């Protein structure tokens, strides 16, 4: 198994502000070409934790920027975000993350 055929895993954590009450896990998107799935689950900490598994290697800095942007928009706390990615563009990733955040119970209250 060479590096070219294995996937890249990335992990980011941000200190969050908007704590969540318990909610059922939410899944949006599909692992298809140029697409991704985003799973948001409640977590027993005050951070927004993002774990990514992607077939496109070498885009760590771009993922970090997209994750940071997402966190600056929503500032979620006490959530674990897990992503399976099949080469989605940064714009698609951002939209999926926003879709997942918007699916959280009471999400409308967060909108500025």
């Amino acid at each position, binding site marked *: 198994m060479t590096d070219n055929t294995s996937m890249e895993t990335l992990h980011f954590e941000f200190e969050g502000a908007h704590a969540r009450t318990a909610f059922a896990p939410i899944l949006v998107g599909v692992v298809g070409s140029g697409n991704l799935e985003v799973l948001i689950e409640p977590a027993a900490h005050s951070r927004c934790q993002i774990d990514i598994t992607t*077939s496109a290697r070498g885009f760590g800095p771009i993922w970090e920027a997209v994750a940071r942007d997402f966190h600056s928009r929503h500032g979620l706390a006490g959530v674990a975000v897990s992503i399976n990615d*099949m080469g989605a563009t940064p714009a698609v990733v951002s939209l999926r993350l926003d879709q997942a955040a918007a699916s959280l119970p009471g999400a409308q209250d967060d909108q500025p």
Partner: protein
Amino acid sequence: MNRSFAESTARERVQHLFDADSFQEILGPGARMVSPHLALLGVPSSFDDGVVVGRARLGGQTVLVAAQEGAFMGGGVGEVHGAKLVGLFQRALIEKPAAVVVLAESGGVRLHEANAGLIAVSEVMRALLDVRALGIPVLMLIGGANGCFGGMGLIARCADCVVMSDIGRLSMSGPEVIESSYGVEEFDARDRALVWRTTGGKHRYLTGDCDVLVDDDVAAFRAAALDTLPCHRALTLDAMEQEHALLADRLVRFGECTDGAQVWQALGIANPLAVPELDARGVRALQTHDSDVPA
């Protein structure tokens, strides 16, 4: 409002086809029951391995439900995906739901997990037939863009009742498989009109492989599922022999045909070339359906 079945994801189909908020997922994405094979091959997994299974209500009756996600690896049946289907059918033996409803969209066995997928397909067929033997109807709803091919096509034809839209396709070997095995002279997989004339919902309805033809609309699939919910078809040696006689007769009647349109002509349809232009209602009105179906 029309909600396209073909353009909906598996989860959207489940959400809108069954009674509102009635779906309870079994082994949801949080359980991370993912493929043990894909990561080793450098291919991304999906948290539900491309199939959503659970319990829902349909017109107030409890049913068990599976929905395949065509956008994930073409709905391919891998080891976990297949095991979820098998487990759902085995659960039906215990829970005795009003029916098991499968929203099938699959190219067949997932080639990355070929052996495990092939075994899974045979296990699903066995479990499905166990459910039917108990008198619990099994419904197949087929309307996704990836169609229902290979092992999943075989599974679909083991069911009591098949509902399709004109977008849906049902067959054993897919167009590309036929072309690469027998050559483009035998079958041109790029000829989309030909592909639908030979595998599409209208053709399957006219030849009796599909029981109900609907438009590409989640509400139409729901209505058809409600209508056909008590559709139990006897699973007996006699019924099996009738089916074999039907297939032998089909080969005699249509064996020389090279195109779906020729089959429709042989079925007595006055203007077969107009069939592709008809909507589902127009095709249903042709009423050749009963001619090729055992009573």
